[in-house]
């Protein structure tokens, strides 16, 4: 793994036509960070993700992923799209979906090899979904589908996992389960996750980026023991200082890396 940041964004501007979506965004993501990108709907979270993936090109500024432009480094990224974008009636099994993560690591012609099958199975095992492998994808519950899509992102052996709202519209217990899984995967992989719920996220992530046209980093700090008792909380409760206004001006305080 390279010594520099895994993701490096500098002075990034992007606009849809004349409508600015992102302005002056700069941040680094380091190896084994667990970053949550939060912000209001339409604030530019998905645009940022698409720029990191190289599906969009910046108007100004630079995006580097794993030391190169996104278009060159794509295969080092494991991407999980929002579930709603997939056709629920498409005839595919869990294995069919997972093994798509092996595309790009095999010749274009001919069927997947045994190696691809083994990697897909290993990824399903890593996300506790191996027993689902022959089930139709359409029959799975919401949480099971998310696990399979994470496995698909995982089976290309990526350095970074990019997840778009992995816990959207899931039961709280299922969300807990999924975050525990992501926390486990974070031991060996950098994770950048778009999310809308700050409360859950803060238990595992070490950094929070708030994107609303501009991008502001929030401090994630341990809450003093006495304070956490007040909340009757689990001991892994942490504090996200959401202390900037959303007018688009960064706060005077500046960055908070420790």
């Amino acid at each position, binding site marked *: 793994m390279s010594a520099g940041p895994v993701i490096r964004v500098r002075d990034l501007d992007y606009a849809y036509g004349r409508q600015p979506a992102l302005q002056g965004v700069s941040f680094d993501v380091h190896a084994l960070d667990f970053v949550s990108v939060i912000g209001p709907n339409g604030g530019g979270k998905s645009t940022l993700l698409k720029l990191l993936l190289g599906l969009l090109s910046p108007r100004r500024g630079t995006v580097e992923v794993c030391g190169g432009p996104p278009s060159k480094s794509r*295969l080092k*990224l494991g991407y999980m799209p929002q579930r709603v*974008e997939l056709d629920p009636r498409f005839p*595919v099994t869990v294995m069919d979906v997972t093994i798509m993560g092996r595309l790009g690591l095999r010749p*274009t012609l001919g069927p997947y090899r045994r190696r691809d099958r083994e990697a897909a199975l290993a990824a399903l095992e890593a996300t506790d979904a191996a027993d689902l492998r022959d089930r139709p994808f359409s029959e799975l519950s919401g949480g099971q589908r998310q696990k399979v899509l994470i496995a698909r992102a995982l089976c290309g052996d990526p350095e970074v996992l990019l997840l778009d709202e992995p816990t959207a519209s899931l039961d709280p217990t299922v969300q807990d389960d999924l975050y525990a899984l992501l926390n486990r995967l974070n031991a060996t992989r950098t994770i950048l996750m778009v999310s809308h719920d700050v409360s859950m996220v803060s238990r595992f992530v070490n950094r929070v980026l708030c994107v609303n046209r501009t991008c502001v980093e929030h401090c994630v700090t341990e809450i003093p023991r006495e304070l956490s008792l007040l909340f009757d909380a689990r001991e892994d409760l942490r504090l996200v200082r959401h202390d900037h206004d959303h007018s688009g001006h960064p706060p005077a305080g500046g960055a908070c890396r420790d």
Partner: protein
Amino acid sequence: MIEFLEALGRHAFLRHALLAGALASVASGVVGTYVVTRRITGIAGSLAHAVLGGMGLAIWLRTVHGWAWLTPLHGAVFAAVLGAVIIGAARARGGDREDTVISALWAVGMAVGVLFLFLTPGYKADLMTYLFGNIVMVDPETLRLLLVLDGVILLVVALFYDPLLAVCYDEEFARLRGVRTDAVFTLLLLLVALTIVTLIYVVGVVLVIALISLPVSAVGRFSRRLWQMMLLSAALSSVLTTAGLALAYAADLPAGAVTILLAALVYVLAGVAAALKRRA
């Protein structure tokens, strides 16, 4: 039914028609599975009518201008490939005009076909043949053509099954994994075009659209995987074309129209069965 079997023994044209139906079913079942799951039946319809324009133009050039070497099949292939490339390009460039291009191609193709057949002396009656086909007129040479088409389709699908599946299911993800999705999609459109051209020759424009969409949609509710859907829809199409032929022979009706209505009936019944199963 017995009557039909006896007639089958007596008449070579019925045996040819039966075989043509089965061979067409393989192509329409396999390619139709992609068309239905990727939700591009509109593109298939558009290409089918573009083909009509190509055939009309070729017939006009051949008859009126003496281009004897030019057959309607040449015109059909030219129009289908051109149409596939135009739609592929409109898609790759993005924007929301893709379905406008598809509809325009549909209308213009049909209009060009009607216009040139009108301008060609002695061809006015042929329009109905191209719309509904005439499966009982199939000769051994056309059967060989169908066999070649099936071979090409099966070969391409065997080689590109996985990228085609990935592009149909989740195009953005496939692109991020380094698959050249625009090229794969254009390949798919070319397969669709090739299938349509050949099948129009056998069963006509309208039956092509019916065969490509109805049996596939009917078995779609009962298929867990893409290849199962291909197998089941090819089998169902064969049954439908055979039954359509038998019914048409018995009642002395046009085979194409009877087959289409049978396919529609099975499609509706499958929908009802699926709804009952969900409720149970």
